């Protein structure tokens, strides 16, 4: 029940926000804030009192074997926590930025968050695809309606990239569905059933590519990354935070949850290419980031570089690397989210994102300066901050499998250092040539930054709870690649799923 609640709270909160706009355009943000606070509380409750695991099964369209099968294990839990936390931060970051059509804005924002939560919790492939679409459409509106100068181009590009790749995934899902149905006689979208589908090598490769393209475009990896800088740059701050902090993570989650367990042998076959793409993303993304003049675009490209570690680690086939990937997902969400909030704050104050017109802002805004410095350091992988744990574990894990790729990827330590110090230099260091004297972070912004700073430090120094949470998932994945999801635990749910399985077209 709590899982359905986690998905519904933002959606209902969004509707409420839309509704309250009629009375007062300043009202929706409170509704949104309350909804996300409730979402975070619910997620924390799930983590603290339900030991983070839960399952929810209700038949939806039995004729086609579609169930509302929600499942939460450690992996989903940490991502849902991240979603709730970043959702709250995103709402807070939009507080003063969005003044037009506020109700519809928060409706879209919260619907996206609801879709993201759904993606992290669905174990039915049809449901998964449903939520996949739910998160894309409102995001399109967020960019197209509240974006900056070039928003129409950016939103179309975002929509086309994700939609086309999403359709390929739909084809792959259907192919898997029919193959499984033909082989076993009952047609179902249930992930646990589909895990047992025997696949010929070529079929596995084909179906895997369908999934993989959707996930890799979302991740994004070179050469499918070019939607990302446009979308990030043009999106409003809250949109960028959700986009970088969460939407990219759905791609990573998809690879971990679906691609690796469903197509274990095909994954091994494809691993060298994926790892190569990961390394290219790390280095090429860093190069692109270094060359940018627009601060937001620069940070967008750093995401390409960081998510390269995710692709590299996910396909390395080593447990250490998988732990690193999860850590990298979480920490990148927080650090890049924080950077986007800071850039949003800068834009609100200076009305520009151009690096050429910034500089020397630390003396005027010490709190912003210190936060920017901290998250720039997180982004270059400074030990003591969470991102280091992720990147180090990925590289260590990859090194055990393939020293060559690990050494090449290690060059990312240098390239990330180059762009990170460049960000610092062009914004808070250097001469303040334009004589900027903007106000420092407000109380609201300070609270957000403080929470994010504490979190990134905590993940860097005491990361064990995260690893404890995800270890069942990772250990299962490595031991029995064909049956990674645990069997339903309660008798009631087993009954329901059996009942569902009985009725096939």
């Amino acid at each position: 029940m709590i899982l359905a609640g986690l998905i519904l709270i933002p959606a209902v909160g969004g509707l409420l926000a839309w509704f309250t706009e009629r009375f007062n355009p300043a009202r929706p943000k409170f509704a949104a804030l309350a909804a996300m606070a409730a979402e975070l509380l619910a997620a924390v409750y799930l983590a603290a009192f339900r030991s983070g695991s839960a399952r929810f099964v209700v038949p939806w369209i039995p004729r086609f074997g579609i169930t509302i099968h929600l499942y939460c294990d450690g992996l989903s839990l940490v991502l849902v926590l991240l979603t709730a936390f970043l959702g709250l931060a995103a709402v807070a970051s939009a507080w003063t930025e969005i003044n037009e059509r506020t109700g519809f804005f928060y409706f879209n924002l919260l619907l996206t968050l609801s879709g993201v939560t759904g993606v992290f919790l669905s174990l039915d492939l049809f449901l998964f695809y449903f939520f996949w679409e739910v998160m894309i459409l409102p995001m399109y509106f967020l960019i197209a309606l509240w974006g900056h100068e070039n928003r129409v181009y950016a939103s179309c590009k975002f929509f086309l990239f994700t939609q086309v790749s999403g359709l390929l995934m739909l084809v792959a899902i259907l192919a898997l569905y029919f193959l499984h149905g033909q082989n076993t006689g009952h047609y179902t979208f249930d992930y646990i059933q589909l895990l047992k589908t025997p696949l010929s090598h070529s079929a596995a490769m084909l179906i895997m590519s369908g999934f993989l393209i959707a996930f890799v475009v979302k991740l994004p990896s070179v050469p499918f990354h070019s939607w990302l800088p446009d979308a990030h740059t043009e999106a409003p701050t809250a949109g960028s935070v959700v986009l970088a902090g969460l939407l990219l993570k759905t791609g990573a989650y998809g690879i971990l949850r679906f691609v690796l367990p469903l197509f274990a042998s095909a994954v091994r076959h494809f691993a060298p290419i994926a790892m190569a793409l990961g390394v290219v993303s790390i280095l090429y993304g860093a190069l692109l980031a270094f060359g940018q003049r627009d601060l937001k675009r620069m940070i967008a490209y750093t995401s390409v570089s960081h998510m390269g570690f995710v692709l590299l680690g996910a396909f390395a086939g080593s447990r250490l690397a998988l732990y690193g990937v999860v850590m990298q997902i979480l920490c990148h969400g927080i650090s890049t989210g924080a950077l986007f909030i800071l850039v949003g704050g800068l834009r609100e104050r200076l009305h520009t994102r151009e690096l050429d017109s910034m500089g020397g802002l630390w003396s005027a805004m010490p709190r912003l300066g210190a936060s920017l410095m901290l998250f720039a350091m997180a982004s270059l992988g400074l030990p003591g901050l969470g991102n280091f744990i992720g990147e180090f574990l990925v590289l260590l894990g990859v090194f055990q499998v393939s020293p060559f790729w690990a050494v090449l990827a290690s060059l990312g330590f240098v390239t990330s250092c180059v762009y990170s110090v460049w960000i610092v230099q062009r914004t808070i260091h250097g001469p303040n040539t334009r004589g900027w004297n903007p106000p420092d972070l407000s109380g609201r912004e300070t609270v957000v930054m403080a929470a994010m700073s504490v979190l990134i430090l905590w993940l860097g120094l005491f990361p064990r709870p995260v690893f404890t949470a995800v270890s069942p998932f990772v250990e299962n994945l490595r031991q029995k690649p064909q049956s990674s999801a645990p069997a339903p635990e309660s008798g009631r749910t087993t009954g329901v799923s059996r009942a569902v399985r009985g009725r096939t077209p």
Partner: protein
Amino acid sequence: MLELLWIIPALPFAGSLFLALLGRKLPRRAIACLGAGSVGICALLTGLVAISFIGHTSSHSFTYTQTLWSWLDVAGFGPSVSLHLDALSLVMILVITLVSFLIHLYSTEFMIGDADYSRFFAQMNLFVGSMLTLVLADNFLLLYLGWEGVGLCSYLLIGFWYGEPQNGYAARKAFIVTRVGDTALAIALFIIFTHLGTLRIGEVMLAARDTWPAGSPIATVTALLLLAGAVGKSAQLPLQTWLPDAMAGPTPVSALIHAATMVTAGVYLIARTNVLFMLSPAALTAVAVIGAATLVVAGFSGLVQHDIKRVLAYSTISQIGYMFLALGVGAWSAAIFHFMTHAFFKALLFLGAGCVIAATDGEHDMFKMGGLRKQMPLVFWTFLIGACSLSAVPLITAGFYSKDLIIWKAYCSARGSVWLWAAAIFGSLLTSMYTFRMVLLTFFGPLRKNATKRPGWPMSLPLVVLAVLSIAGGLVDLPKNFGGGSALTKFLTRDLPSFVTAPGRAVHQGMFGVFAACVSLGGILLIELLMRSRMYEKISESPRAKALHSFWFSGWGFDRLYDLVLVSPYAMLARINRDDVIDYFYTGLSRLSRQGWRGLCATENGRVRSFVLGIALGAAIIIGLAVFL
């Protein structure tokens, strides 16, 4: 007392955090108390810990490990946050905390006029905390945390006055160049964990000794990667280029970087991982050769600088070269001894230079100074003591005992050679020359700029203490010939391998010592004569000397080389590819479809004639296809 070990690194971290969060609201006096106080208590505690550690002399291989918390524990990879105290780390933390405290005390007055007083102390404290973590780390991952932490702090403090673009440049350069070395270190850690299954330093050393045969390629590769890391942090060839530019920071920062933290990290790393280097004679030889080459190269560059701090920077590179040379010939404890004496006299010299610079309104150019001897007697005398110690003036200075030991051991070691000895002795000549060139230009000759400020007690006291230590510091390792017992060497040999002498070379130590002493004194006399007789200026004005002068002045062209080979191409590539060549494919795709749309639109022109033509053509094609296929 040993249980209090964790407080030693924790205090500076706490001070840093506190100052970073609340510093701007505190009065300057409180900031000074907090900033210097945290490190001061740290130094006191270190003293207490040292007493209680030395009290355990009954067991010869006594070490103390304190686990604070388990950092990670995944898939067999379980480094914890643990501190490890043994003879080597004890000597390191004693020197680090003592010298850092003196520098902090000095800074309370030196930086008093700066707007960012609290930020300065927050970052200085963080620097000390990181260095202590590095030295006390029980495993390589925690060491790496401290290692990167000092890199970060050097970046923050070199760029402390960030308003000037060149300061930012120097800071970035320091961070990125050392990061190159750090990456090599990270790769070394990957190898170590993959092959030996642990990152705990003690276990790694034992496992390496057991599983890796001496001279095996894997041991050599690992040792060379560790060396690359050390070379980056310790500013040795070929990654030395960042240190001369690091002068951009406030002078106490330079003192901290050069004397107590940062640059000695490389020396510590190699000493700490001595087992790996012993397994690979090739890597050990590389250490010695890099040290010897660096000390000569940097010596030449130091000889021609104008900026007083740059002379000191090159002298640091050169002196660390001596430490590398010592490590490379297996004189492990001699390297640590020289680290200690160097920390004293280099901190003294930097702080003295800081006084001079502050007194002459920020003048760095020695040619615009002069005659300050009378105006600043305390600074002059202490600076002179530091200079004597750096030049290894025989018998009375600490620098003599440590450097003489290295020069001698470069010859008599089983790994030594005449060439290494010759480089060391030549470096000693250069050292005396550039040091006293600096002293003569700054304190002697005509008065060019009046000293406007006299240092107060917070700046004077560190000078005096460090001057005493620069003289008396040699006593802790006084060799037998001078009536001592080589106490430090004995103490360190608990943890470091003992020195192996080459058969037949151990004779004539006295003669070698006298020769080395003559060389360092001769260097002082030579530069004195050259400068007094105006020969120095004459020589440096001949065209050939000028070319050489500018070559040395620019640090042997390394900057230009790296700029040409690495920096410019990368920046150019980034600039050219700003719009992402891959995106052209997608924009091309959209343009293509738009062109297609235009083309199809053009057919919809409303003229019946073209419609009829279209229908006819279409019919013809269909009929044609039907007939021919």
